[in-house]
Every structure is written in C-alpha cells, then in structure tokens.
C-alpha cells in the first residue's frame, strides 16, 4: 500500500512511519498541511492518514479541498481531541474513519487495512464465503458445510462485519462501532460474550476453527489451508 501521512508531531510521525514500513507499506510523510495537501493532489496514494490539527492548513480543510477536487482517497483522521464531536465533524467533512490519540498501532493498521479494502469492497457482494462458511446477504442465511445456522440478528451482524473483512484483523473498537454503534469501550466485556456465542454456532463441532482471537488486538475470521 502507498500511504500519505500528514502529522506535525515528528515523534508520532516517525513511529507511524517505522511501523508502516515494518508492515511493508510505502509511506510519504509531511509535517505541515500545505505540503501534505500538495501531495494529496497528486492522487497517487491508497490511503491518507491525516492529523486534525496542523500548521498551515488544518486537516478538515485538506479533506474538504481534496473532495472538492474529486480526489476520493480514503482518509483516516488522527486527533488529539478525543471528543466525540470531533469524530462527527471529521466524518462529515469527508473523512472515512477517525482515530483519537493516543492510539495503538495495531488499531491504526487494522483501520488502514479496512479502509483500503473499501476501495474494492466486499460489501457489494451478496454472498460472502470463507472455506465452507457461507453468508447470504439477500436472505440473511448462513450455512456451514451446507447446514443451516440459525443466528440472532446481532450475531448475524457480527458475522457479516467479520466476513466482509475476512482474513484481516478487526479490532475490538472497530467491532463496537460497526456492529453495535458503540463509540466507547464498555467495562462489561460484551464483545467476548457475543463472540463466544457466535463461535459456538459456527465453529462448534467442526475441525477447522474459522473465528480466531488475536490476543490483545481483536478478532479475525480466516481459513488457513495447510
């Protein structure tokens, strides 16, 4: 992936850059708004990671200008302002996702990858399939090995989100947002409870376990044929 990173805090910039490079991504980085915007106009990046507060032009203006120029590169906002309102503002301006500082790198990378997939989204596909697990969005039917699985609405939604991002890490925060529309992390571990229920229904009694827990980071639905 070719990533444009615009962030004025050099230490954060360097750690994101290093991290992304470790994951074999190409990173162009700028520490002020003007240079960042110029790079954005080139329209050659897969993803833009953009700080809200920048010297020169601020992040919101950059997105607005890019969108006005029909540049639709997915934008992930970074912000030191943890407020919910800022998230809404950022998304309204044309941002695609929002992450408040301090964030964890695994969260950043998971979101970057999820944004990248949106460019050729599976969400337009009606039938999602991984190994022998099939989810049909039209009739909301789920089968594994051709056997019908009866899912509750929330379980279905959870599975749908996981399967749309199959093989990739979905962080807990992403699940909370996408499945339950919760923009904070409740004390009660509702994710684990729902995941374990879903797991019982789709994986129990099968040799291959599809729903994986990635320790300290999140979940992923994947099939590794050995």
């Amino acid at each position, binding site marked *: 992936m070719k990533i444009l990173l615009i962030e004025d805090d050099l230490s954060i910039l360097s750690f994101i850059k290093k991290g992304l490079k470790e994951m074999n991504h190409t990173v162009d980085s700028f520490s002020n708004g003007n240079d960042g915007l110029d790079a954005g106009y080139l329209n050659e990046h897969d993803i833009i990671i953009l700080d809200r507060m920048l010297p020169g032009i601020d992040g919101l203006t950059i997105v607005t200008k890019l969108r006005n120029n029909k540049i639709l590169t997915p934008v992930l906002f970074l912000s030191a302002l943890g*407020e919910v309102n800022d998230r809404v503002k950022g998304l309204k301006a044309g941002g695609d996702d929002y992450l408040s500082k301090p964030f964890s790198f695994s969260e950043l990378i998971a979101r970057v990858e999820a944004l990248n997939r949106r460019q050729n989204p599976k969400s337009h596909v009606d039938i999602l399939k991984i190994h022998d697990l099939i989810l049909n969005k039209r009739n909301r039917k789920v089968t594994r090995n051709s056997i019908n699985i009866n899912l509750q609405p929330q379980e279905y939604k959870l599975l749908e989100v996981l399967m749309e991002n199959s093989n990739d890490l979905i962080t807990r925060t992403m699940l909370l947002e996408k499945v339950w529309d919760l923009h904070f992390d409740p004390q009660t571990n509702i994710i684990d409870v729902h995941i374990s229920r879903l797991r019982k229904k789709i994986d129990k009694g099968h040799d291959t376990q599809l729903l994986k827990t990635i320790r300290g980071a999140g979940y992923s639905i994947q099939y590794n044929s050995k």
Partner: protein
Amino acid sequence: MFFNYFKALTAKTVLIFSTFFIFILIVLSIAVYEFTLKVMEKENNRVINIEHEYLIKTYIKYGPQELIRAINQRSKNQNTAIYLATDQLYNKLAGNLNSWPEENKDNEGYINFEISRVLGSQVITHSSRAKIIIFKNGTKLLVGRDVQPEILISNALINLIIFTITFIILAGIIGSALLGRYSLTKINILNLAIQKITDNDLIGRINNKNINNEHKQISINVNRMLKRIDELVDNSKNISGNIAHDLKKPLTKLKGNLELASIKNKKNNKYIKDAITEADNLIKIFNALLDIASFESEKKQDFHVYDLSVSIKSLIEIYSPVFEDNNIKLKSEIQKDIKLVGNKILLTQAFTNILDNAIKYTANAKKIIQISLHKNNNFIYLQFKDNGEGINKQDYSKVFDRFVRLEKHRQTDGNGLGLSMVKAILNLHNATISLSSNKPGLIVEIKLASIS
C-alpha cells in the same frame, strides 16, 4: 412552624425583654396601687378627723343639745359623711345612720363597716369608715365617711393593671413571633438561595438586589465565597484534564515504541505485550479524563433529536447475552416513542456505565436488574435497579467524584471514573441523577427533559 418563630434570635431577644418589662411593670403597679390607696385613705381619715374633732369641741363647748343639732344639720347637707349619736343603750339620738355598727377597730382606731341604703328598688351596700367616741354621760358619737370610691378606684386600678400586663404579655408573644417570622423569612431567602446553589453544583448566585438589611453583606460574602469555591473546583477539574493532556504525547510515544518493539520482535515477547496492555489501560484513563473535562466545558455540540426508547431497547439487546451468561434476570419496562434532544453517543455511554456497574456489583444469587423508562409531565425518568450490595447512603455523593472507589471495591477492576463520566454527560444534558436504596441494591434514577 409557629413555635419555630420563637427560635429566631430576634424573637428570643424580644421575649427576654418583654419578660423583664412585665416584671418591672408588676412591681410598679403594686407600688402605684398601694400608694393611691394610702393617699385616699389618708385623705378620708383627715376629713373624718376634722369633723370628729369639730363635733367633740361642739359637745364640750355647747353641750349635748348643740351636738345633736349640729349633727342633724350636717346630715341633711352631706351624703358621703356619716353621723350617728346614740345614748348609752345605742338608741339613736341623731344622724344619718340607723344603727350602731359592729366595732371592728383597726390599728389606727377606725372602724370599718358596711352600710346598706335603699335606692329605689335596689339595696346598695357601701364600705364606710368611722371614728367613735363615748362621752362621759354615755352619749356615743360616730363620725365617718362613705369610702366606697376607695374600693371602686382600687378595683379599677387592679383591672387596669391586669389588663395592661395581659396586653403586654400578649404583645410580647405576638410581637416576638412576628419578628421571629420576619427575620426567619429574610434569613430563609438567603438560606434557600444557598441551598439551591449547593444542590445545583454551585451554579448561580444569591440575588441581593432587593435585600436592604444586614443580610446584604452576608449575601455578598457568600457570593464571594461561592466564586472562590467555584474557581478552586474548576482548578481541580482542570488539573486532571491538563495532566492527561500533557501526558498524552509521551504516552503515545511510549506505546508506539512498545508496538514497534513488538512488531520487530516476532517471537511475541510476552513482556512487551503486557506493557502494551498496561499502556492501553493508561490511555483509557487519560481519554476518560479528557472526555470528562470536555463535557464539563459544556460544549453542547452535536445535539439532535433521537428516540430514547429505541436506543435503550437496543442497549438491552446488546447486553442480553451478558445477562444470560451471568444468570441475571432482566426486567424492563420501556415506554414507547420517548424522544429527547441530546448527544446519543454520549448518553448511551452514560447508560452503559450505569449498566456495567449494575452487572459488576450484583453479587446476589438471584440477580435481577430492572430497567424502566417512562415519561411524565415533560420529564423522562430512566431507572436502573439492581438487587446487589448497593451503596451506603453516606457515599451517594462521593461516588460521582473522580477516582473515587469505595473501600470494598478497591480490588475490583475499574478506574473510578465511570460515574464521574456519567455525571459529566448528564450535566451536559441538564439531566439529574439520584441514587437510592433498592433494599437490597441500588436504584439509579435519571431525570431528563423531554420534547413533546
């Protein structure tokens, strides 16, 4: 209520002064009474003595015949003077008295008796006083006066004194009650204003424009004190926010480096992962502190109309597997179509915090959590009841403070920010939260303004 008036300082002062005044008045009245009676008695006695001496002289100078003539003449002209002359055997010789009275001499040598006169159809009895003498030939002479006015005046005086004292006692009691009420009312204006401000998180000040007495200075000083407290509270609020803000950057770098280390070290170093988890917890606390600080700065952004009934129902749905797994029986009573203006994300977060607490502290074997939502008179009431261990009444106000964790829960997970967050979010919505006991357990009631 009425007796409370007497507890006022002014009322007590008036009562003490009235009592003192009444005491003085009683002493004075007795003195006036005695003095008046004495003066009247003396005057009557003086008149009696003059007459008495005159008649004795008449007798000595001119003999008994002249005495009787003089008595007869005097009896005609006078009606307050009393005369009687008798012979040895008390047979009347002259005078305006019919029979010799009983001789009850007082220590000054006067006799006091009563005479009855027929006036029309009425018999009138008057007190009288007289001096008597027995001449050598046995003639008895009585010279006296009708002293009824003395009695009348003394009675009138007693009545006047009783009336005055009664009046003053009543005036003292009523006056002190009125004064007490007045000062209590004035103090109460201050009192209520202070109470309201205290209940309202120190928002508002005492309006002292219409106060024009010694309470004005008090209200000015109370306002100054409130302002000072407000500043201190603000400072302490800002401190945690500022610390969180300043520490965010180093923490982000710390975490970034840990993650880089973890990425580079593919052997999945357990210690690095644990350190990342701890850093995450720190980040959570900082984010919560910053959130609370931003809610407290009262920026009411992104408020919109939404259906609380639907939102609460979906929250219950999200939590239903949690209830099942924890053997918690959930009872809910959700009135439909309750709408409000607010920030849905924030309010949901607040309700989730309360629900998390209810789940966490419901240790009872037969766990029940009840959630009810209803609307009444433009107010929305949202209640969370559990049958867990509850909270001691004296801790009710404490639990909303930052980093407060009750002694018995020090060991449980949590950072002591959950309820501060709830309170901050609800304040932002002008909503109130109140705690009470479910016997056993806790009832959390939230009151929000609704839209029609």
